[in-house]
């Protein structure tokens, strides 16, 4: 009877250690003798590549390198209450620990091409130190919200969003354009124009209807 290989965990009771250590140095492993072979055992005997197939994450997907979504950083910090917005069951590939080996200190990555070098315009604006001791009241890049105090700029930039204080912040803060409580003059003007147009239309319509009624009354 040919000895058959067994995959771990499938038939632990039938496994026997190979007792060859006395003759030649052989690593510990499993070898089943006389056990009825399963499909995996037969496959492992017939084709060793099936063992590699079982561990492989698969071929690289055709679109793996052209994803338009930005990659998540491994140590991404999300929110203070991180237990509230974590998706249970989801595991990022980068967070997966190596199997049965201690984690080694991370090394600098080599020639790795990130598929998406994603830095949106908002991100770039938040990181780039735009204010380098700017003079107070200087309007800088209208339309671009500026992170306050990346390099400790001049206090009170004025400008578009009323500039945060310079401060000594070292971490760039994601800029949030505030919605003003009072509408701008243009908004008021548009609103009033609209009301005027509606009023005018109603007035014209009423006049025409009155004229038509008068005309039919005169005929009849």
């Amino acid at each position, binding site marked *: 009877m*040919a*000895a058959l*290989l067994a*995959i*771990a965990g499938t038939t*632990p009771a039938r*496994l026997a*250690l*190979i007792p060859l*250590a006395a003759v030649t140095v*052989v*690593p*510990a*492993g*499993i*070898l089943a003798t006389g056990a009825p072979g399963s499909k995996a055992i037969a496959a*492992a*005997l017939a084709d*060793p*590549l099936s*063992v*590699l*197939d*079982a*561990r*492989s*994450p*698969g*071929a*690289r997907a055709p679109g*793996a*390198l052209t994803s338009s979504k930005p*990659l998540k950083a491994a140590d991404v910090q999300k929110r203070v*209450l*991180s*237990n509230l917005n*974590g998706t249970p069951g989801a595991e990022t*590939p*980068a*967070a*997966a*620990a*190596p*199997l*049965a*080996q*201690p*984690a*080694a*200190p*991370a*090394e*600098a*990555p*080599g*020639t*790795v*091409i*990130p*598929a998406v070098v994603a830095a949106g315009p908002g991100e770039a604006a938040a990181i780039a130190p735009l204010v380098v001791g700017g003079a107070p009241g200087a309007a800088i890049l209208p339309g671009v919200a500026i992170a306050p105090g990346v390099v400790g700029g001049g206090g009170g930039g004025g400008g578009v969003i009323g500039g945060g204080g310079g401060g000594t912040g070292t971490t760039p803060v994601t800029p949030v354009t505030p919605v003003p409580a009072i509408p701008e003059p243009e908004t008021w003007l548009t609103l009033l124009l609209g009301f005027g147009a509606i009023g005018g239309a109603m007035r014209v319509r009423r006049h025409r209807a009155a004229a038509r009624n008068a005309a039919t009354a005169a005929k009849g």
Partner: protein
Amino acid sequence: MRVWPLAALALAAAGLATIYLSRSPQPVSVAGAPARPDPASADRILYPEGRHPELTLPDGSKQVVRSLLNVPRTLRYGDWVWREEGVPAGPAWVRVDLARQTLSLFRGGHEIGSAVILYGSDGKPTPTGVFPVLAKAREHRSSLYDADMPFMLRLTGDGVAVHASEVRFGRATHGCIGVPPAFARLLFDAVQRGDPVAILPA
């Protein structure tokens, strides 16, 4: 007595403690050398004597396989396995399987390490074939791409090498083979100059 400030402080402390304790658990790293595997644990598939299969390399040569690592689950990006306990010294060779995105290191016919790899992007593909290791460098900086290539095993004259990378989904190389840094360190020490590295096509 002013109790309100104290009560507020206690409430705040309790809240902070709750947040701290309810954070998602971090992956625990085991310090120190890996423990010797339980002999009964089936971390290796030994082929019986006389039934050793052979793997065909791209150049037509064949390598005998005496045992393979029994990996309990599908490896994910960044995962690697290393088990060399009891494996005697012998000639080493590396099998890089681009189609399976894995690398295997064999010593004396026994597989002692395996990892998920990165390989060349579609525009800069990884060459296939059998390449002896031309040079080794623990620290190397790419002159072509101005990037670090730690634990480099150079394979070709134009700079293709096996080196440490951050192996993550959606990444590729300029033709090199990237392996996880911790695995790259082990691989670097286990492979000598001249050892063949077989790269099989995707």
